[in-house]
């Protein structure tokens, strides 16, 4: 049976809506940490929102969540991966929205704002998965500038932003900026496999 990290839920009880949480994970525990963050937000705090899927396709993420029994049908997914694969954007799921490429940073922000404007829920989050996926395509300075804008945009609108990253795959400039901008840190990044 899939086990969630309960300490993440405990940590999240301390977090305000206008917070921005940096969630550090490792390569091997990325999905467990993501699910452990998302489930309490949805089930304990009755939040909805936007999941920006940059590491894997939205469809793959949804299926992974469904496999462990999490219903994500009311979460809107912005898929940054599938447009890079011909035929990848064929889906009947209404909660998947496509952006052409991870380099269209402003489009990702605007699409998130649009989806948040269409939601009826009072409390929302936006989960960015992940900084290191965006770092593959974007210049360090531009990515640092983007995260600054991204975090402040949602903080101003009282939307909880959750930024996932694998620290050892994130450029140092971006990482240090994240430490500065984010109000909270959930650190599950030090996973050492011998």
């Amino acid at each position, binding site marked *: 049976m899939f086990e969630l990290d309960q300490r993440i839920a405990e940590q999240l009880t301390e977090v305000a809506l206008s917070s921005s949480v940096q969630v550090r994970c490792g390569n091997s525990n990325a999905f467990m940490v993501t699910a452990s963050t998302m489930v309490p937000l949805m089930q304990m705090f009755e939040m909805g929102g936007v999941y920006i899927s940059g590491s894997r396709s939205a469809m793959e993420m949804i299926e992974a969540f469904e496999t462990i029994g999490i219903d994500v049908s009311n979460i809107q997914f912005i898929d940054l991966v599938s447009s890079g694969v011909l035929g990848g954007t064929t889906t009947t799921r209404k909660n998947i929205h496509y952006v052409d490429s991870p380099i269209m940073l402003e489009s990702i922000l*605007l699409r998130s704002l649009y989806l948040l404007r269409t939601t009826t829920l009072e409390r929302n989050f936006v989960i960015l998965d992940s900084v290191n996926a965006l770092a593959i395509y974007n210049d360090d300075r531009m990515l640092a500038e983007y995260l600054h804008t991204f975090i402040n945009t949602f903080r101003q609108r009282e939307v909880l932003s959750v930024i996932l990253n694998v620290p050892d795959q994130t450029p140092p400039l971006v990482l240090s900026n994240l430490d500065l901008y984010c109000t909270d840190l959930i650190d599950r990044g030090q996973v050492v496999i011998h």
Partner: protein
Amino acid sequence: MQPAAVYTRDRCITGIHGLDEILRGGIPYGSTVLASGTCGSGKTTLAMEFLVRGAIAGEACAHFTATEPSVKLLENIRQFEFFDMNMVDTGLINVFDMDVLYSWLGLEKSSFDLDDVHALIKAIVDIVNTIGVTRLVIDSVTTLCYKIKSEQLIRDFLFTLGKKLSTLGCTTILISEITSATENAHWSSFGVEEAIADGIVVMGDVERMGHLLRFLQVVKMRGTSHSRAKHAIELTPIGVMLTPMLKWGAQGDTKSRWGA
């Protein structure tokens, strides 16, 4: 001693997400604004949303279309959630085909002289006056001006039209098509429209690693302070949305460009 009150012109609130913020409250009432852009940059959608937001507020609006038939224009715009066909059916948004207008006026010819231009101005102004239009779009002034062969006549046409519409309290968006891709380009097709207009909004694309990002930039707007920064735009089902373009990404791959 009390400081003198600062005079602020009344604004036509566009209702477009982010644009009123850039314009510090909206377009000054009665202005003639040139919306210049490359193909596919979102000019028609922006202009139509400007009319829809006005219609929602109960204003009478008019759209003169010269680039595509009104039926096609409405079919294309119906995909947006912000548009409601009832606004056309109930006469809040009035769409006119320029070809039909030319036919009414007996102007089915390849080029216009001074009398033709005056007849056209009179027809547009009469329509605006009769319906009580407060928001007007001409799409596009480029197509219309192709029939006017002299620069002086184009200048007179736009200046007179702008002046008369302003007197009637009508805020106008003139759509202009530009093709140039360099930063030294004019913001209009004939080079005279930009001098006449009270405001210039430029729309185009920034190329970033093979992808085109739409942008909007307010270059000039008389009667208001405003941001002159480049803003990224997205055409969403609920309308145009804007956000400041990333400074490290505003230049594109090579240098600043108005189009692809």
